[in-house]
């Protein structure tokens, strides 16, 4: 199992039945296929769909039905379409239970940097600032390091997406919560030690009262 699959499998255990969730581009879109069978969620695409289904079969595409990345998708039975003001009412009004997204940097105050790297072209924040401020829970799903360099810091140095918003970080190494004490390791992946995670992290890590092995189903 590669890192991304580990992360997606673990992330798929986060939603409760009936949750409304939003998935960032990339890794988070792998979460739905790993959801437990008895957990049914409403997937929002912030461009205007609640109830996103899988990709359309060839020959059954409708270009009017697409996700926030511009890719064609399907709408499940019972899906709703809406304009951008309504979509962000759902997001900013606290109706999204979990937003899963990637990050460039996360720090121990829960600050998140995910939208621009100084000195590089600036793509824009899209709906990311809205999602992390508005969602009830912000779960970062990402590989623990980028080419060996840590992504968890004591203080973010990149321009922020939002202040003090991250609740949980799921990587291929560990599940880490952001608490008043800072980063707290709650789960370790099979065969990974607390010290392994510390070495891959540029911030102080605390141990949860009880650290369990990361479940993957």
């Amino acid at each position, binding site marked *: 199992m590669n890192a991304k699959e580990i992360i997606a499998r673990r992330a798929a255990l986060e939603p409760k039945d009936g949750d409304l969730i939003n998935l960032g581009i990339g890794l988070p879109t792998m979460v739905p296929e790993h959801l437990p069978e008895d957990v049914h969620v409403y997937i929002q695409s912030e461009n205007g769909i609640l109830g996103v289904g899988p990709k359309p079969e060839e020959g059954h595409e409708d270009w009017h039905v697409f996700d926030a990345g511009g890719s064609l998708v399907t709408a499940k039975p019972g899906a709703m379409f809406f304009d951008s003001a309504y979509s962000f009412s759902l997001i900013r009004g606290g109706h999204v239970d979990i937003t899963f997204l990637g990050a460039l940097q996360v720090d121990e105050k829960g600050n998140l940097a995910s939208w621009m790297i100084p000195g590089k072209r600036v793509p824009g924040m899209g709906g990311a*600032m809205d999602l992390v401020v508005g969602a009830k829970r912000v779960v970062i799903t990402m590989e623990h390091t980028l080419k060996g360099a840590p992504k968890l810091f004591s203080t973010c140095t990149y321009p922020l997406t939002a202040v003090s918003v991250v609740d949980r970080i799921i990587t291929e190494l560990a599940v880490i919560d952001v608490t008043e004490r800072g980063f707290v390791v709650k789960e370790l992946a099979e065969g990974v030690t607390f010290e392994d995670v510390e070495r891959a992290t540029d911030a102080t890590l605390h141990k949860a009262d009880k650290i369990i092995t990361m479940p993957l189903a």
Partner: protein
Amino acid sequence: MDKVMSAEQAVARIRSGDVLLVGGFLQRGSPETLLGALLERDVKDLTIVSNDTGTADTKTIQLMEKGMVSHAKATYIGANRLAGQMLIDDPSSVELVPQGTLAERIRAAGAGLGGILVEVGLGTVAAENKDTLEVDGKTYILEKPLFGDVALIYATIADKQGNLHMKGATKNFNCLMPLAADLVLVEAEKIVEVGELDSEMIHVPGALVDCICQREED
């Protein structure tokens, strides 16, 4: 009150210096026929307000290539190389806005609100040069309404009165912008007689729409 005309006739009413509210999301549901007709016009110093300034496949980038666009306001410009270059050349020419804030600011303009208080963007560059306000112990950014001179709108179906239906996810900003602009130009995949579009399927009332033209096949 015949609102149906050619795209050329519709965009003839756009003037240099106008703020254009352009519907669509990335390459989907953007008013490409109207933008194509606009490319033939001799106007400049346009401001484009849109979710994302389009992609390499859409025509906003061609307006930029022709030097017709001096300002852009968007949530995302990563798929339009020239918008990125505009920002590098002159940071004041491109305003990046969180997506919900862009939607609410356009809605506020259409709804007659003097401003809205939002939490999104606090502690980030999105709060720079903006007033903040404390209400009941919480701090908010005061965001102001965002008006356009002209809205360029995609619709799936328009009736001849200008009632509009946007199918699926093409509602995005296409449904909001007609309330926020003085002049509303629409291109529709299909133009039908009044009464053929079911009342419950109408997303924008014809009373707001000035011009309707036939969208060209993709």
